């Protein structure tokens, strides 16, 4: 790939601190959105005006008003409160499932990329099989065998996303293993564990982090989809997917019940996507310039 003509002439690296990377807008905007969201979610039990399951038959299906900013649903529950509390569930689902897939996937990927051989073959064949299921299918398959619940959905999603994490960790590791500084570590007699965690991982984590941040959005969406079809969170939980599902019969008479969680989901996912893209932009060029290329 032709680098811009400047690089072709191969300027020598200037002294430290000459280039100051500016934070891209995406990163800032995404960060702000997510920051607000996280704060809201954390403080939800205290700032929500009502409890999420507080029913009132008198106030059913009321449009947004001063007392209920987002109106009420068919059981008279405050939609705003439920949405706020649902934020915790969605974030929990997204982050929890992603963490699970990282904890399992990253060490496997590192080992596979470094060791190659039998272990690598077996692992990749297994991953291929798991990847041959469309994500939601695998999730459904796992959940079909048990009474659905939110925590089970988190585990299922975590398992579903292990293969992509393994893949990307492995491919980054494969790239790094051929770098000469890793071979230099061999030549001076470093142990495998040291090489994996002190030489490879510090260089490998940026692409993994970017991938992980995008996985969070997938996890949130997949979790919402599973709840939507009844395989995730169960009533009376205020998970967003579940809320939309429950709101379906009332969509023309009381659209706010579905719109609130839907918009909240939009905002969340867009925020995380922006954050992830911004991360990719900051991390990539620095990696390249660190290599002096």
């Amino acid at each position, binding site marked *: 790939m032709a680098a811009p003509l400047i690089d072709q002439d191969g300027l020598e690296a200037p002294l430290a601190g000459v280039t100051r990377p500016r934070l891209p807008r995406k990163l800032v905007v995404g960060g702000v959105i997510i920051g607000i969201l996280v704060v809201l979610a954390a403080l939800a039990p205290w700032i929500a005006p009502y409890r999420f399951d507080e029913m009132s038959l008198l106030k059913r299906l009321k449009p947004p008003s001063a007392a209920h900013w987002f109106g009420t649903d068919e059981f008279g529950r405050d939609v705003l409160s439920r949405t706020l509390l649902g934020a915790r569930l969605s974030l929990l689902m997204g982050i929890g499932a992603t963490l699970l897939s990282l904890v399992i996937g990253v060490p496997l990927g590192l080992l596979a990329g470094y060791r190659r051989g039998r272990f690598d073959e077996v692992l990749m064949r297994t991953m291929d099989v798991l990847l041959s299921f469309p*994500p*939601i299918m695998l999730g459904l398959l796992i959940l079909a065998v048990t009474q659905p619940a939110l925590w089970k959905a988190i585990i299922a999603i975590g398992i579903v996303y292990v293969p992509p994490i393994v893949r990307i960790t492995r491919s980054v590791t494969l790239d790094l293993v051929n770098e000469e500084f890793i071979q230099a570590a061999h030549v001076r007699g470093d142990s495998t564990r040291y090489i994996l965690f002190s030489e490879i991982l510090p260089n490998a984590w940026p692409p993994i982090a970017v991938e992980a941040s995008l996985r969070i959005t997938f996890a949130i969406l*997949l979790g*919402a*989809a599973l709840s939507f*079809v009844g395989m995730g969170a169960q009533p009376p939980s205020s998970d967003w997917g579940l809320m939309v599902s429950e709101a379906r019969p009332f969509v023309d008479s009381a659209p706010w019940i579905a719109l609130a969680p*839907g918009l909240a989901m939009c905002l969340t996912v*867009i925020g995380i996507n922006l954050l992830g893209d911004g991360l990719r932009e900051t991390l990539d060029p620095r990696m390249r310039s660190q290599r002096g290329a």
Partner: protein
Amino acid sequence: MITYVAQRLLAIAFILFVMSVLIFGITQVLPGNVAYMIAGQFATPDVVAAIENKLGLHDPIFVQYWRWASGVLRGDLGQSLIMERPVGPLIQEAMARSAILAGVAFICVAVLGIVLGVVAAVRKDSATDNAISVFTYLGISVPEFFWGIVLILVFARYLNWLPSGGIGDPAFGLPVDPRYLILPAITLTFALIAHVSRLTRSSMLEAMRSNYVRFARAKGLAESLVVRRHALRNALLPTITVLAIDVGFLIGGIVVVETVFSYPGLGRLLLFAIERHDLPLIQASILIIATIYCTANLIADILYAYFNPKIRYGRPAH
């Protein structure tokens, strides 16, 4: 090339085998005794035991698996417990309907995605590029069921242009009334178009920065020729791969979209089966769906090899 195809076929066969074991194994863990369900709630233990024996539920698991697998290979997918009909025709019907919807959506995603990606790359950083970026961003950021509901609200309820769900009767000489396909297809397309357009854009950009495009420009070729013949060809190769992955997402989306639009396809059938713990139906549906996905990947691999001269022609003994 032949060797490549042969290898891939073998790999697929192997994967399908392992998948079938997995599917079978997992569903065996299903709580709720199958025999109970057939016999009904008020059946006596004898009746239940008799049914268990008839179904061979006490045989070792390998035997049960073999019974099922050999049946599948023969085309017998078992008997639905709830509906008491053979699974095969059930699935066939549902699959045909889903296939039409998925097919329409896939074509839209492929064509629109590539076109948008190319346009965005050629007009990099312009207003058009940003607009396309925002548009596709929205697509992947929002869950399909939400978009579906919004579309229903707007087009079916307020504007009353299109039906809000179901499938209707065959019309206009086609097996499915196209008006029932429009909203679900739009929902599916919108959700997936971002993957394709973003990847096409970035691989076009990469192609346009490559050394061979630089050389083509230096030869004095017209820019449109450079884009069309040199950049596009190489840029589209990775797109084939991502389209295959998108088939997977499409299938996932089908489940949700069919629920939102009450479209009687394979996705809805599967959900129905899971809710009722209808074991044979679950097993067969997931197996079929996974097979379709594998086949799509296989086709993508073959197309990739076909269009990539490095794999197709290899290196002659020099």
